[in-house]
């Protein structure tokens, strides 16, 4: 028996590793374990005021910081029966677009692309692909800038609060976003073209189910009150437990999810599968051009899905900015009750994120947070197992198998998808 | 001193005209934040605002700025990039504050950074209505006779305009038709009435006479320890006080080179590290010691040197300290040997 282990799958909300146990050419098991220490954040926020919870929970993950914040805000506002103003709503949309651009450009170009092109890092690509690396940095920087303008800073901005914003973006800042987002569209298109021209190895192909929020008004978007499943079902976000069924496994500090006893996928490709037809603008054209049945089986297409989504986010910014600019600032809405429950669901760049709260007399009684990576873990394991089996059957060398596995894990953009470095092979 | 008269409604025209000399700055109020900001015209100013959060020292000596650019060959001073500015609407206390800063920065050794900004900034004072925190009457800074370029006293129907410098006079000469030398008896009466009325407006009653002796007597008083227990060491008092001048200096280098800049930023004697010296010895380890230095500086030492306190009575420490430590409460506590609630 030998063990092919992919150590330090960093950033699966912390640190993880993949161990593939091989028996001859057969794969005995694939385990993705998270050995980052537990943080028990859900327990720590118990007894806190909602505003204090909002300071803590974004620190679960820096790269989805705004998604966490927004999911919590949605959950808390439902629990406290607060209805945010239109201006607040739109400004939140804008911040999510910013996070999407930042995260998707980081993941596609700087973390996933080096695999496809055979480099150890984006920096190592500088000599041969300087333009593309700089393009990615431009996009990422702009995404960060949008987050900074809307949330107060690049990472862990405190500006979005329950009931509104500390301060709304200034007219000048909105104008800056409008101009810059238009300027960057050619860059985003180049990213799509690049990923559209890549070969996606078929080793990992398998049927799966896809979940995402159902954005309101039949539009594409990153937040919603119901959840779409690719089998056609639609469920209220409040029933998230039925969808995710969290459980603890012994080899990991991250919890796991199954839907109807089967692994499922969340993320950009799930969003495309469920809501792709709602895209508009050039993003819609690219979607039509590139979308195929393969997306339903091969997780690697998540990279291309992210590229298309990023273009959509950029294309949408000017309109959102205009609408925000046309509305008067509104004060922060106050809670209308002190006891209640609510679940917020948003689409983090790497998939659906749930924050559920029970509030009692103004204090948090129960907090339940289900992250996209936790939902994907079983799915990742499933696709990796297949990849390993098929590659071994193809007589691939260990080095190639290792890279193949890394690419699959990374494609899920697991929180920060610098996943799966340092693969070592152990034989018994 | 030359005193001229101007119609109330001409002020706006005058300010529009003098903008040719430099940027126009004045007191503004936005989101509860009262500050001197760059404005286009009089209409954007709020002349009723009593005190800005930060005094005009920020113009002469910004919270943070670069002194030098350096590389291995030496240090090149960074001056010359300061815009010409006209500051309208400064109150007498703040002009007194500038006069004290002038002494500090321009005498003995001449600070070129302060000097450049001072020379490029014209101070156009404006009379004020004291609020419940003002105490300039106790520090003898309620009126001002020097240190400004022009000073506008609002007498309801008209302004009396004191011309304090040749530069001030040059501004007048940009619109001479707005000013008249023909002052009559009613102007004198109005002015006297205004002074009398202003004297009755103070609500904070505090007496700083004898402070140097009271400080001397109270050097070891337990009052300092009690105040020290309350003080948060937040340093706000130093930032807002028009006569606090302390600063720190740091060098920054650029990535991958040894070129860099030497920056200066506002510091406060209320911070622990401020007085720390080599070997870990701290001359003012206790907050009580630091507070005593601060208030000794304002109410004892300066009076000993110059006959009046280094406090100009602006009330900013009263309007800032979250735990109610300020010139009034400290002076009272020392006199009564009791820290008030």
């Amino acid at each position, binding site marked *: 028996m030998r063990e092919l282990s992919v150590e330090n799958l960093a950033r699966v909300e912390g640190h993880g590793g993949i161990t593939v146990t091989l028996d001859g050419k057969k794969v005995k098991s694939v385990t993705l374990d998270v050995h980052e220490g537990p943080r028990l954040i859900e327990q720590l926020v118990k007894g806190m005021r909602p505003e204090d919870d909002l300071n803590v929970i974004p620190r679960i993950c820096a790269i989805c910081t705004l998604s966490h914040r927004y999911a919590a805000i949605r959950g808390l506002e439902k629990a406290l029966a607060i209805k945010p103003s239109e201006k607040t709503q739109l400004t939140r949309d804008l911040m999510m677009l910013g996070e999407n651009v930042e995260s998707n450009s980081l993941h596609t170009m700087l973390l996933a692309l080096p695999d496809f092109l055979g480099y150890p890092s984006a920096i190592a690509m500088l000599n041969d692909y300087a333009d593309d690396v700089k393009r990615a940095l431009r996009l990422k920087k702009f995404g960060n800038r949008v987050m900074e303008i809307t949330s107060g800073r690049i990472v862990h901005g405190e500006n979005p609060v329950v009931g509104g914003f500390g301060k709304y973006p200034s007219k000048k800042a909105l104008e800056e976003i409008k101009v810059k987002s238009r300027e960057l569209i050619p860059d985003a298109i180049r990213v799509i073209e690049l990923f559209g021209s890549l070969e996606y190895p078929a080793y990992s192909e398998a049927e799966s189910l896809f979940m995402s929020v159902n954005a309101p008004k039949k539009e594409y978007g990153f937040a919603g009150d119901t959840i779409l499943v690719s089998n056609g079902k639609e469920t209220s976000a409040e029933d998230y437990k039925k969808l995710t069924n969290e459980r603890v496994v012994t080899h990991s500090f991250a919890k796991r999810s199954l839907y109807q006893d089967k692994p499922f996928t969340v993320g950009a490709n799930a969003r495309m599968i469920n809501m792709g037809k709602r895209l508009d603008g050039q993003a819609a054209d690219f979607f039509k051009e590139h979308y195929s049945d393969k997306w339903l089986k091969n997780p690697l297409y998540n990279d291309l899905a992210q590229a298309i989504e990023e273009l959509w986010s950029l294309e949408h910014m000017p309109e959102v900015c205009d609408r925000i600019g046309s509305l008067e600032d509104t004060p922060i809405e106050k809670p209308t009750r002190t006891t209640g429950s609510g679940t917020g669901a948003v689409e983090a760049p790497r998939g659906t994120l749930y924050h559920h709260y029970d509030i009692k007399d103004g204090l948090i009684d129960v907090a339940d947070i289900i992250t996209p990576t936790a939902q994907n873990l079983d799915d990742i394991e499933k696709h990796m197992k297949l990849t390993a089996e098929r590659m071994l059957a193809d007589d691939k060398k260990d080095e190639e198998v290792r890279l193949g596995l890394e690419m699959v894990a990374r494609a899920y953009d697991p929180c920060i998808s610098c996943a799966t470095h340092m693969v070592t092979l152990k034989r018994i | 001193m030359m005193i001229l008269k101007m119609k109330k409604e001409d002020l706006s025209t005058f300010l529009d005209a003098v903008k040719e000399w430099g940027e126009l700055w004045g007191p503004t109020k936005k989101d509860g934040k009262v500050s001197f900001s760059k404005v286009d015209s009089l209409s954007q100013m709020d002349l009723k605002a009593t005190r800005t959060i930060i005094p005009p020292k920020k113009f002469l000596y910004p919270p943070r700025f670069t002194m030098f650019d350096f590389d291995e060959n030496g240090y090149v001073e960074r001056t010359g990039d300061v815009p010409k500015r006209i500051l309208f609407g400064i109150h007498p206390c703040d002009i007194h504050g500038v006069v004290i800063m002038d002494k500090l920065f321009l005498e003995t050794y001449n600070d*070129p950074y302060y000097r450049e900004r001072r020379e490029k900034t014209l101070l156009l004072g404006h009379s004020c209505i004291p609020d419940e925190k003002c105490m300039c009457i106790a520090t003898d800074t309620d009126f001002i006779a020097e240190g400004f370029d022009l000073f506008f006293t609002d007498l309801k129907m008209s302004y009396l305009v004191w011309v304090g410098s040749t530069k001030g006079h040059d501004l007048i000469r940009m619109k001479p038709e707005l000013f008249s030398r023909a002052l009559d008896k009613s102007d004198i009466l109005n002015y006297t009435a205004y002074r009398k009325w202003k004297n009755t407006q103070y609500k904070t009653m505090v007496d700083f006479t004898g402070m140097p002796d009271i400080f001397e007597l109270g050097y070891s008083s337990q009052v300092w320890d009690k105040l020290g227990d309350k003080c948060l060491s937040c340093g706000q008092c130093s930032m807002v006080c028009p006569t606090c*001048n302390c600063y720190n200096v740091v060098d920054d*280098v650029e990535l991958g080179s040894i070129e860099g800049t030497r920056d200066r930023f506002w510091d406060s004697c209320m911070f622990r590290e401020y007085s720390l010296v080599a070997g870990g010895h701290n001359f003012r380890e206790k907050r009580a010691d630091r507070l005593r230095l601060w208030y000794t500086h304002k109410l004892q030492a300066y009076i000993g040197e110059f006959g009046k306190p280094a406090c100009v009575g602006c009330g900013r420490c009263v309007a800032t300290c979250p735990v109610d430590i300020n010139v009034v409460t400290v002076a009272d506590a020392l006199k009564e040997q009791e820290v008030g609630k």
Partner: protein
Amino acid sequence: MKKMCVVLEDREIRDNPFTPDMFRIVRRYPLTNDVNFYQARPVDVEEALKFDYKPGQFVMMSLIGEGEAPFSLSSTPSRPGMLEFCIRNVGTLTSTLHGMKENETVGIRGPYGNGFPIDKMLGMDILIVAGGLGAAPLRSLLLYILDNRDQFGKLTYLHGARLPGEMLFREEFIQLKDREDLNCLLAVDKDDTGKWPYKVGVVTELFKDLGPVDGKNTFGVICGPPAMYRFVTPHLVKLGIPKHQILMTLERRMKCGVGKCGHCAIEYLYTCIDGPVFSYWDVLHMKEIIGRGVSDKTIA
């Protein structure tokens, strides 16, 4: 009341007192395991003889990227051309300085501070008490007096160190013991070598060996760690030296050296421009001056 207002138009001083000039380190060797001796000369050699100062003054030394720190001049202006320092490695700037080699450059501006009141000290007896790094400014005074020996009365130099190996300028001072016109007494707290031929004990022990002192006609000068002031001053008072003739040089944190940054303030005085040399009389009515503990009780 003094006139408050500074008239801007009057002044034509355009020099930037904060600009360091570049100096070259021409010699550098260790005095003890954490104190180095440095000799520095302006990069522009023409300038070398123009740098004039008084014993007891200090300079602000800049290292690129590390900032500035004050250091006493250890050399005497009576031997112009070269500035000398002895500097202890205690932190960021000083540790980088310790790693520098001869021929490298540093920025220096100054001299600053009042220095010793040489005019008043002329013709008087001088009793110097140095402890540890206090020798840095006091060596300047000592060498100055030796170079102008006929202008002063009796000269006594007391120097204490913790261990023989920690005594700054040990060889230099031991040689001075041979001079007729100087009474040089050295002490170490502890002799770990077993070969120390002079006094073993704290510096105040040396007062026993002093012989007669004409207090009224003497200037006592102290420099050393804060605690030393507390122990030594009573001895000087006992010798009958008037309080205004007991001098001490003080250290404070400094960021400008020219009375602007505020860090070295002691009540209304600035160590940098009103000091670093203060008389015991100043200290007596400025309680904070050598730190807590020097209250009326301990001084009386």
